[in-house]
């Protein structure tokens, strides 16, 4: 194994990992506030990709410059996904808020299947080609090859993650989110409308998911109704690996998973790539079920 190959795989891993991290944040935010694994989150990502695809195609056909079309498409995808995410919570999860935890979990799986079927109805079963708007021609930096597309993905994810961490840790609404995650009853006593906070959480998580969907579609050049499934499972793995409920954990988990997968590719054939995520999941569940960054809970008196 040459060091160049390793470096190259690390870069690839960071690009893919940053997308996993964005999706993992959606899982972990919802879990933090509702203790619910929103298995439909992967489908949100898929919807984001397909909406962006349709909008991009329509706008470029209308003569709008491609980059602007892509930006507008991402915006549209974020809005659609935020609406879908908030609606899922309102219709499917809220009525089950005080039900045993298995009920919302099974509902989440049901919602996930439902959204896939809706996507088939709306977009069809085809594998769509995602237009190459940001160039994917290789750029050589020393021994490493990257594309402009990958650089944009990395920069966008990092900025979005930084923005989210800032929002949650430094703003009033973010503090209210953390307060609600810790104790909904007391948060209500403070005048915080917890239903609103939960809706905002779903909206933000889904909006990030939408962007991640566009990234994946542009990176692999395709989008289809089933793309959210594996991506969702991997991001879920990343969230568990980092310590579900913890934002930094989701970021770390996503990046580590991306690295493990891509560095692992040096040793095995590409078809086995998906194995790594689940080997990692099993190992984490056995040896460190609370995740790498275990929830910091300080309790006294």
């Amino acid at each position, binding site marked *: 194994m040459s060091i160049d190959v390793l470096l190259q795989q690390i870069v690839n891993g960071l690009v893919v990992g940053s997308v996993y991290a964005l999706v993992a944040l959606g899982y972990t935010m919802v879990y933090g506030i509702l203790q619910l694994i929103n298995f439909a989150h992967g489908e949100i990502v898929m919807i984001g990709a397909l909406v962006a695809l349709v909008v991009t195609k329509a706008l470029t056909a209308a003569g709008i410059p491609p980059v602007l079309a892509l930006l507008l498409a991402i915006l549209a995808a974020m809005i659609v996904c935020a609406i879908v995410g908030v609606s899922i919570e309102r219709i499917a999860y809220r009525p089950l808020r005080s039900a045993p935890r298995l009920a919302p979990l099974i509902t989440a799986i049901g919602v996930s299947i439902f959204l896939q079927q809706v996507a088939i109805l709306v977009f069809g079963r085809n594998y769509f080609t995602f237009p190459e708007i940001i160039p994917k021609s290789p750029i050589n930096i020393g021994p490493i090859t990257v594309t402009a597309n990958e650089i944009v993905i990395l920069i966008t994810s990092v900025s979005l993650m930084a923005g989210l961490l800032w929002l949650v840790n430094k703003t009033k609404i973010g503090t209210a989110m953390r307060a609600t995650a810790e104790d909904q009853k007391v948060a209500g*006593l403070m005048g915080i409308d917890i239903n609103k906070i939960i809706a905002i959480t779903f909206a933000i998580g889904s909006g990030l998911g939408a962007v991640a969907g566009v990234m994946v579609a542009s990176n692999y050049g395709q989008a289809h109704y089933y793309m959210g499934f594996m991506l969702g499972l991997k991001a879920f793995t990343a969230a568990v690996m980092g310590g579900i409920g913890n934002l930094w954990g989701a970021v770390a988990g996503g990046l580590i998973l991306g690295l493990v997968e891509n560095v692992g590719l040096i040793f095995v054939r590409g078809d086995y790539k998906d194995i790594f995520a689940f080997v990692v999941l099993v190992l984490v569940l056995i040896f460190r079920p609370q995740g790498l960054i275990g929830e910091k809970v300080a309790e006294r008196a």
Partner: protein
Amino acid sequence: MSATLEVKQLEVAYGGIKAIKKIDFHVNEGELVTLIGANGAGKSSTLRALSGLIKPVGGKVTYKGQDITGVPSHALVGLGIALCPEGRGVFKRLDVHENLLMGAFARNDKAQIMREVDEIYGMIPRLKERTKQLAGTLSGGEQQMLAIGRAMLAQPKLLMLDEPSMGLAPLMVEKIFEIIRLIAKRGTTILLIEQNAQLALEHASRGYVLESGEIKMTGEAKALLADPRVKEAYLGG
């Protein structure tokens, strides 16, 4: 003139079992009224019903003449009612400063909020020393101080305190009551729920004695303190 808080025929039940049986009481503006009673007498159920955490099965609660029966807790804050919950309920994973700011969540006058946060720090210096500390790392007494300070930041006209002395060392209890007295002196109307009848009656102007979900006695706090029945049941003879 109507009372700040008026409770009429309030009934609370948990799945058919009546915890509160048609009780009446009121708190006038500027008063510090205490509701005392043993464990399980229904004190916390009463407060939970008043603060919208549970829906009463019967009766009416009015605040300044306005019907607030069953209004959800987050909507009460805007009306000027704050509850300092039992077991303190500070946000353990938020720091002291963030906890205080959450008390002012419903408000938007940032500059005034900051002035009031400083006032709280002036009143409770312990909190000022620990602004950046996670609330979960504070002692029980400090958490109680924080919970009271946080409730004050809602600018309540009516402050309801649920067992502020619970689980605290006597010295700390004294300090907590000192803070409560300061708040009362500033004109905030207070409803104090307490198991520590002696202390509560010493600080209150009037009191109600709750027993098995019913109000058994009421009167001036001084008179209740001297009442032999109260003495025997709640003040250790």
